[in-house]
C-alpha cells in the first residue's frame, strides 16, 4: 500500500456558461515503476496510479490510463467546457485497489 497519497485539485469556483476552464490536478504518489531494485537486489514491486478520470455531472470529461514510466506525483492540467452549474468528480485508481476521489463544485456567474 502506497503511503502519503493525497489528491489535490484546483478548479475555478465560478465560470460563465459554455466557458472552457483550466483544471489542475495533482496526486502525491510514489509511482514505483516495478523496474527498480532495493539494496538487497530484490525487485521493488510495481505500485502506481493506473487510471485517472474526471466527470462533470456524471458525464465523462477525461479518462486516462497511466503507465509505469510516469513520474512521482502525477500532475494533469486540462481544459473543460462548463455548460451549466455542477460538480466535477475526480477519481484516481491505485494498483493496490485503493480509489481516491475529490470533487469540486462550479457555479455559473
Amino acid at each position, binding site marked *: 500500500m502506497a503511503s*502519503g497519497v493525497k489528491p489535490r485539485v484546483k478548479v475555478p469556483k465560478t465560470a460563465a456558461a459554455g466557458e472552457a476552464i483550466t483544471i489542475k490536478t*495533482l496526486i502525491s504518489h510514489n509511482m514505483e515503476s516495478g523496474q527498480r531494485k532495493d539494496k538487497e537486489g530484490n525487485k521493488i514491486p510495481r505500485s502506481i496510479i493506473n487510471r485517472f478520470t474526471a466527470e462533470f455531472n456524471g458525464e465523462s470529461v477525461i479518462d486516462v490510463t497511466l503507465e509505469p514510466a510516469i513520474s512521482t506525483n502525477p500532475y494533469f492540467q486540462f481544459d473543460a467546457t462548463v455548460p451549466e452549474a455542477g460538480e466535477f468528480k475526480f477519481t484516481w485508481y491505485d494498483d493496490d485497489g485503493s480509489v481516491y476521489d475529490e470533487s469540486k463544485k462550479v457555479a455559473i456567474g
Partner: protein
Amino acid sequence: MKFRAMTAIAAVMLAPTFALAEADDDTMVLNEETEMVTKTAAPAHVADALDQVMSGWHFRSDETQAMQLDDFDNPGMVFVEAGLETWDTVEGSEDKSCSSCHNDMDSMAGVRATYPKWNEAAGEVRTLQMQVNDCRTSRMGAEAWKYDSGTAINMEAALSSVSRGLPVNVAIDGPAQSTWEMGKELYYTRTGQLDLSCATCHEDSYGMMIRADHLSQGQTNGFPVYRLKNAKLNGAHSRFKGCVRDTRAETYNPGSKEFVALELYVASRGNGLSVEGPSVRN
C-alpha cells in the same frame, strides 16, 4: 574555404544566443499577490564584487520560472505539506510535537530569513536544521534527523514557506563574524583537479553558460530547492557538496562546520533578496 565561411556564419548565429544567456528582467509575483524581491543592490560586504544580487530564478527558463509562481504548480509544496504534518506529530519521550510549543507554522514567519544564526547558549552558529534537531533532542526527547535527509528538508521547506517574501537578513557581525570569515575563505578557495572556487563560477562568470546550464550567482534564498533533475527537495549543503564534487575535489559533509560557515557566508551575499524556498530550479 567553404568550411571556413560556414564557421563564420555559425559564429554570427551564435552571438544572439550568448546575449540571451543574461539574467532576465521578469518580475516574480507569488500566487498573484506577494511581490518578491529578486534583484536588489548588493549588501555592503559584497559591494566590491557585485553591483546587484539576483535570485537564481532569473537564470531559469520561463517554464521553470512559472512553476514557482503558483503554490499548486510548485512541486515543492507537496513536501511542505509533509513537513506541516510532521510539525503536528507528537514524537519522543516528552510527548510533544513542534506545535506543542510553537503553535501554528505561521508563527514561524521570518525565522528562515535570519538563519544561519549565532546561538549564544551553544556558542556556535547554527543552521535551521541544527536548531530543529536541537529542539528534537533536548526538548522533545526525539532522535535527531540526519542532515539534509527527507524529513529534515521537508521541515526546513515548511519553515521556509511561511517566510516567503521576507528579505534574507543574516547577521555577520558580533559573535558570528569568525564563522562568516571562515565561510568567506572557503568561498574564495580553489579546490579540486579543476581548481575552481565558488567565486570562479558564481561571482566571475554568472550569466554565462557552463555547458548547457546557465550559471547563477549561487544565492541560497531559494533553498530548499525542488530540482527537476531529481524530483525532490535539495538542501543547501547537498548543493554545496555537489558543486565541490564537480570541481573534482573531496567534499565536506552536509552539516559539517565548513558547510555551516559557507552557508552563512553565501546567505549573507543574498541579504535583501526575498526568501523563496521551496523554489523550483533545474
